[in-house]
């Protein structure tokens, strides 16, 4: 896939609605613990959402947190945890050779809504608009805050890829390493979406906003009685390096990126296209030099919407029709839909299976939708398997599809 360069993961930092480290997140996934809860949304009142409870001030001063954004704060937490996890020699590393590449679904809605609300509280006095609005809402904000926090002088930007953002951020980081633009890539995805009213209201207008009196039962992917998406925040950032660099510094190699693909439906603003999803998965497999039967686990995007679940189920069935051994799971029953973070978070939650051999189950599915029946679907309880490869799907609006394959590192 990577030509003369193999790209490896040497660190992971994350925050999810049910865990602030890979260990706690993984434990929650295996035990079936949901992180979805009730929250108050401006104008709308009580809604369900996945909210994170990491310590915002462990790596950031109160002043910088106030000046920045929630997405920036999440990114700073994840980046610092990832750097620590990778045991990078940060004091001596060339910061101009480090890059930050973060996938986002959206950015700027939170701050814009807050400013408009404040302006209304001040009799539409436009001069009450904050001077911080622009640096908070520029699209590179989450990645840029990481560079400010860690003194990184290499490139940084975000990748606007809707809910494929988490995968696309990792892919962009790998591409920058292959191109030789950086020696270390901090790459992944982040989401601050539960802080914005507009996204809740829009999903409600689509009839696609999850609800349940018990918030832990609100996100029900592939379920006949699903009600829609439980919007979540979170983030997962990976330290990526070229294999030779990682070996040279004696890094612990968590896994290797084996192949990836990103394509476009070119068919609808919102509704997915299973034919293009299959093409995307097959392209990733081809680039990885693999057959469908080489994949041990497929992590579905599975948002908990009828259109999305049914289309993806058809796509996964078709893409893996030749494989009788591939297990299929999903993560949004546990954490809701972490939007731009979904791809990188959900992949992270599965990566430990390369070592511990447990495929975490999907939860929240009370009655499986017959249209979503897939062979070897892992529901409710973990399955033991010698996991060597994982294919992670993440799809987004405007028809962006991504599939990312990781494999156990073997020298």
């Amino acid at each position, binding site marked *: 896939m990577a030509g003369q360069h193999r790209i490896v993961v040497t660190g992971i930092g994350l925050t999810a609605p049910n865990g602030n480290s890979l260990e706690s997140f993984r434990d929650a996934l295996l035990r079936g613990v949901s992180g979805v809860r009730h929250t108050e949304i401006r104008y709308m009142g009580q809604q369900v959402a996945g909210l994170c409870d990491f310590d915002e001030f462990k790596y950031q001063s*109160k*002043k910088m947190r*106030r000046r920045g954004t929630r997405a920036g704060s999440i990114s700073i937490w994840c980046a610092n945890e990832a750097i620590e996890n990778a045991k990078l020699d940060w004091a001596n590393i060339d910061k101009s050779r480090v890059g930050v590449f973060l996938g986002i679904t959206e950015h700027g809605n939170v701050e814009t809504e807050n400013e408009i609300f404040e302006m209304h509280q*001040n009799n539409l006095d436009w001069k*009450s608009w904050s*001077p*911080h609005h622009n640096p908070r809402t520029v699209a590179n904000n989450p990645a840029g805050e990481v560079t400010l926090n860690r003194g990184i002088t290499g490139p940084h930007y975000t990748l606007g890829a809707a809910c494929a953002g988490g995968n696309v951020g990792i892919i962009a980081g790998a591409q920058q390493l292959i191109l030789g633009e950086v020696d270390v890539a901090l790459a992944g995805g982040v989401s601050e979406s539960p802080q914005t009213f507009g996204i809740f209201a829009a999903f409600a207008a689509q009839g696609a906003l999850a609800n349940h009196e018990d918030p832990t039962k609100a996100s029900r992917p592939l379920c006949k009685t699903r009600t829609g998406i439980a919007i979540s925040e979170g983030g997962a950032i990976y330290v990526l390096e070229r294999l030779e660099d990682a070996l040279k510094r004696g890094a612990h190699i968590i896994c290797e990126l084996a192949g990836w693909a990103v394509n476009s439906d070119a068919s609808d603003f919102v509704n997915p296209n299973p034919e293009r999803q299959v093409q995307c998965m097959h392209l990733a497999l081809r680039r990885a030099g693999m057959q469908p039967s080489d994949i041990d686990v497929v992590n579905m995007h599975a948002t908990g919407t009828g259109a999305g679940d049914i289309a993806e189920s058809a796509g996964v069935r078709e893409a893996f029709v030749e494989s009788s051994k591939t297990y299929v799971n999903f993560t949004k029953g546990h954490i809701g839909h972490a939007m731009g973070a979904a791809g990188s978070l959900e992949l992270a939650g599965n990566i430990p299976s390369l070592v511990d051999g447990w495929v975490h189950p999907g939860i929240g599915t009370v009655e499986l939708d017959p249209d979503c029946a897939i062979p070897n679907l892992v529901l409710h309880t973990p399955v033991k398997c010698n996991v060597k490869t994982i294919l992670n799907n993440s799809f987004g609006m405007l028809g962006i599809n991504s599939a990312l394959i990781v494999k156990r590192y073997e020298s």
Partner: protein
Amino acid sequence: MNQEQVRQVVLNIISDIAPDEDMTVLKDEVSLREQLDLDSMDFLDIVMELRKRHKVEVPAEDYPKLATMASCVSYLTPKMQ
């Protein structure tokens, strides 16, 4: 508001804008920027909060009058009667 009340107003705003700072050791006659980690954006925030919380407008040409706590109090007290 009297001068002490105006001082407290400014203190409250700066405490919100620079929450990591110890405001108990602030010297009123010394430049705020010499004592606190404040930059130009922070001063814009102070002006903004005065406007939002107390309907006091500080034109750009008067920004230098916010240099110290003492000068803030002198400048703002007549505006907050």
